[in-house]
């Protein structure tokens, strides 16, 4: 299955090379002590998220595509048009039609919200366009205010509106929702992905939140220490992280040396060969039935069972996040659904880890968390119901 996904993404890259629509780049950029390297093709209307920890070089990639930092090697092409490379003169910034939203938004401090949003527009068309964007992003109140009077979230959305007002041929967004509260984050994310699809422009989104990447992007590129570790559909990255490092980035909270109580079963029923470590996510673990009142049918799905002691329970929303310490001292998080009754702290509990991701001694994936039959994946999507916005 891993192979199938990989050929998928290389197929979409090949397509972009042929019909030339979208963004293609293959860049190496010097950044302090490391060199950031990345190859990717983003189709028209597609949104790809770059995910990684702070300092991975995510923003550097965007700056390189926009033309703000010189390339050490490689080149950037947009819609079949050459943009820049290390060995021939780059296209001037003003002719690139690259829309870049930086982390600090970079608003013009001497202009009000409306003038900032309409900056890239010719005078006549500006007014109506600015009004539309302001309405879509809930910015009507700050059209007359200067950036210094706006909150961080408002500045971020004004910057987003400014980028999209200028009709860019590619959209580069660096943590565009970091200052927004969860509801606005969802709404704005849905709006962005809608705009990208409607305008049929490629979009690159930098984030450190996989859930956000999934809501907006169709593929995820995982970047760490300047190297691109994996490019795949978000659910594939979540289920089949290429390495332990990627797994940690996409929400696997703990890694446990395999200690089999029951044999570890793969989706096809065989024991995964070569696995020495399993990655565990809180939402893939349940307490074994004898410790909880409401079972989750855990017996029917393949997985490993672990034994440990309940260390702590902390409420998280309406659910409860518990932590279990195993015999070897490692800690496993458990997310308990609301309505489940709880064991006492300090009690011995059995954990059932559903379809854990399994890694070999060098940290490479042996077996993904194939909890969901991969055949179901194409069913995901949005129905063509004629109905307003598609806020997730």
């Amino acid at each position, binding site marked *: 299955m891993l192979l199938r996904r990989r050929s998928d993404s290389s197929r979409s890259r090949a397509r972009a090379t042929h019909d030339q629509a979208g963004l293609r780049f293959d860049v190496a950029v010097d950044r302090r002590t490391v060199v950031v390297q990345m190859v990717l093709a983003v189709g028209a209307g597609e949104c790809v998220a770059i995910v990684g920890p702070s300092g991975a070089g995510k923003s550097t990639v965007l700056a390189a595509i926009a033309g703000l930092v010189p390339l050490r090697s490689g080149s950037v092409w947009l819609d079949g048009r050459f943009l820049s490379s290390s060995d021939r003169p780059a296209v001037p910034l003003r002719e690139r039609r690259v829309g870049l939203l930086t982390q600090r938004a970079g608003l013009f401090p001497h202009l009000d919200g409306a003038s900032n949003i309409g*900056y890239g527009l010719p005078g006549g068309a500006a007014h109506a366009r600015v009004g539309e964007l302001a309405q879509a992003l809930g910015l009507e109140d700050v059209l007359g205010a200067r950036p210094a009077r706006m909150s961080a979230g408002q500045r971020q959305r004004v910057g987003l509106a400014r980028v999209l007002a200028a009709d860019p041929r590619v959209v580069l967004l660096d943590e565009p929702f970091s200052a927004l509260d969860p509801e606005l984050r969802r709404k704005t994310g849905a709006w962005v992905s809608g705009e990208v699809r409607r305008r049929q422009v490629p979009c690159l989104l930098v984030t450190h939140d996989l859930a956000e990447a999934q809501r907006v992007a169709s593929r995820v590129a995982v970047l760490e220490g300047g190297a691109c570790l994996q490019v795949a559909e978000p659910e594939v990255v979540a289920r089949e992280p290429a390495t332990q490092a990627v797994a940690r980035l996409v929400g696997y909270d703990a890694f446990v040396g395999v200690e089999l109580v029951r044999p570890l079963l793969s989706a096809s029923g065989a024991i995964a060969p070569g696995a020495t470590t399993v990655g565990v996510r809180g939402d893939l673990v349940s307490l074994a039935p004898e410790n909880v009142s409401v079972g989750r049918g855990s017996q029917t799905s393949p997985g490993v069972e672990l034994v440990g002691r309940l260390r702590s329970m902390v409420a998280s929303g309406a659910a409860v996040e518990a932590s279990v310490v195993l015999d070897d001292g490692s800690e496993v998080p458990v997310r308990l659904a609301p309505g489940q009754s709880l064991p006492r702290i300090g009690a011995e509990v059995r954990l059932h880890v559903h379809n854990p991701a399994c890694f070999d001694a060098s940290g490479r994936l042996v077996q993904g968390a194939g909890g969901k039959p991969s055949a179901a994946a194409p069913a995901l999507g949005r129905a063509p119901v004629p109905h307003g916005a598609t806020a997730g």
Partner: protein
Amino acid sequence: MLGVVGVLGAVAVWLALLGPLGALFAHLSPSALRTSLSAPHALSPLVTSVEASAVALGVLVAVGTPLAWAMTRNRLPGPRVWESGMLVMLLMPPLVIGLLLVFFVGPLTPIGHGLARLHLSASNTFFALVVAEIYEAAPYYVLGAAAAFTSVEPELEEHAWLLGDTWWRSFRRVTLPLAAPGLASALAMAWARAMGAFGAVLVIAYHPYGLPMQIWVTLQQTGLAAALPFALLLLVVALPLPVLAYVWTARARIASGPDASVGDPAL
């Protein structure tokens, strides 16, 4: 305590520095004012000074602004060299500048010969006055403008370019408005140097009389009191404009700046 002492001290220093201005109004007799200003051609030095300063400033803005911009945006190899050169000119006493101008553009120099072919002479002419004022004022304008441009984040210019602006358009819409307070202050300083230019003027442009020269001549020929009306003239006619420009840009600076914050550890 510290707060009150500080404010009183600041007021005292400020009053001491402005004391001479008070002396002007205290010692100016209305009759002397009437006599001086009703003399034939009494206003012509003022007109000469304003005209020469305006021309000098026009030239400075036209050639000094691009130089200052180039100096701050790393367009020139060895940025330190350019800045140091301007600093050396800044540190030259005006009298020395005048002296060196004689050897640089005076009638006997190669440049002087060239100027003569254009029917210009840099010695005791209006042209010489303008040249002297340009050289006295230039480093103030260029270094001030460079500081103003430094305060504009290059990131904002890059954003303007990415949004489709040409260099010139982004300069007009982003760089210039953001640098305006600093540029206005540089311009005010340059205007002050040009209007008050005396050292260099004394050496290469004794004629036609600008206001400083008129004051100097009156001082020598008639005495201190007779020169006071010209000082007042200067204050009334030449000062309001730059002061207004400065106050206006100060307001703009406040409007675009961050919210004021409060908090005093010394109260």
